[in-house]
């Protein structure tokens, strides 16, 4: 039995985070009118764009991180 190597785990991380990221973008554009309507109201609705930005930064940030790692772009030790 061979020990699982690194590439498959990278691939599953890329596919997992990538899939989640793409889903978020699809949802954003599927509901763009409602979301824009909420954020255009201003005042306390300012939380809408802020929360979306934090959520996307977390999910897409994870995806882009594992993406470059998967391509072999890692920090120099």
């Amino acid at each position, binding site marked *: 039995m061979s020990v699982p190597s690194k590439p498959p785990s990278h691939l599953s991380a890329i596919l997992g985070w990538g899939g989640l990221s793409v889903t978020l973008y699809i949802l954003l554009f599927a509901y763009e009118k409602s979301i*824009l309507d909420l*954020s255009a109201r*201003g005042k306390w609705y300012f939380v*809408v764009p802020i929360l*979306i930005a934090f959520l996307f*930064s977390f999910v897409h*940030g994870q995806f882009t991180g594992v993406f*470059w790692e998967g391509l072999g*772009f890692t920090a*120099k030790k």
Partner: protein
Amino acid sequence: MDALQQFIQLDPANAGYLFIVGFVGGLVSGFIGSGGAFVLTPAMMSLGVPGIVAVASNMCHKFPKALVGAMKRAKYGQVDLKMGLIMGMSAEAGVLVGAYYQELIKQRFGDAGSNLYVSLAFVVILGFVGALVMRDTLKAYRSGMTEEEKPGRLALWVQSIHIPGTMVYFRGLNTRISVLFTIPLGFATGMLAATIAVGGFIGVPAQIYVLGMNSLMASATELVIAFVMGVGGTIKFAWSGYVDIRLAMIILAGSLFGIQLGAIGTTYVKPFVIKLVMAVIMLTVMFSRALVIPVYLSQLEWIDAMQPSTMSMLKNISFAIMILALALGAGIILMAILKGRREAAHPTSPSHLKLATESRMPS
């Protein structure tokens, strides 16, 4: 539904354009801590986005980008969180004052006056600071001192001043300095951010030359400052309903790819490369903004009227040079990363041998 009219229809071509500009901007920001976002506001406006929505959406993509970049670079031990938070808070105050002056100038002199003020700020500040950083970079390159940086005379003086009750230890400096020095620097960073959208052109050089931090830590710490400023700025604009979250998230999609790569790149390069990229971008952008000053002077009727075709030509050339500035910076970063990776993979390459031989030679 009237408020929705300020948001443009997005097609795949526009989205692709913003994604690419976002990627290049993110690459530069991940590497030098700032400086990748200045082209995004005009880029969005060129698609028909109203100015204030472009500024607001740019701001809304900057803080999550800075957060991801700061976390990445913190993993490499490059971030001085305390410095970033202290300077970030004073930068917030600078943003408010800077925005107030912007508003005042706009009321008194109109759009042309406001544009002239912004362009003059670009030219004077980027010209002075960019020349300083470039001179220092060339000096380091010529003397072969590309591996390590030492605090200059001004920074040593700042570090020697002891003001009771204001001294704080900063990890990035490995010494205690008075916050009475960091607060005005943060404030100036915020003022610049409110004026030209890139506070880091003051924030990073100030941390290097005034406080004595090395380029790697200064550029990484700037990401914390940018995050603090970005959250505050976004709340301000979102409170008035100006953020187009679709634009912000498309730019973010590209810029997070860029910022991760830029951050990784800092671990492969010598510190002077960070200064080189910063200086090249600053001086090229300065040239770009200097070109449009006659346009605004003409609109204010302070010089002879200019043909509309000439104005439009100067504005287009200026925008093209701005894009060139970003492309130049990104090109240097990518080349430096590829070279660094090659050297890391083959540590006995001729350039390494040469460096090792040089370092053993008596001076």
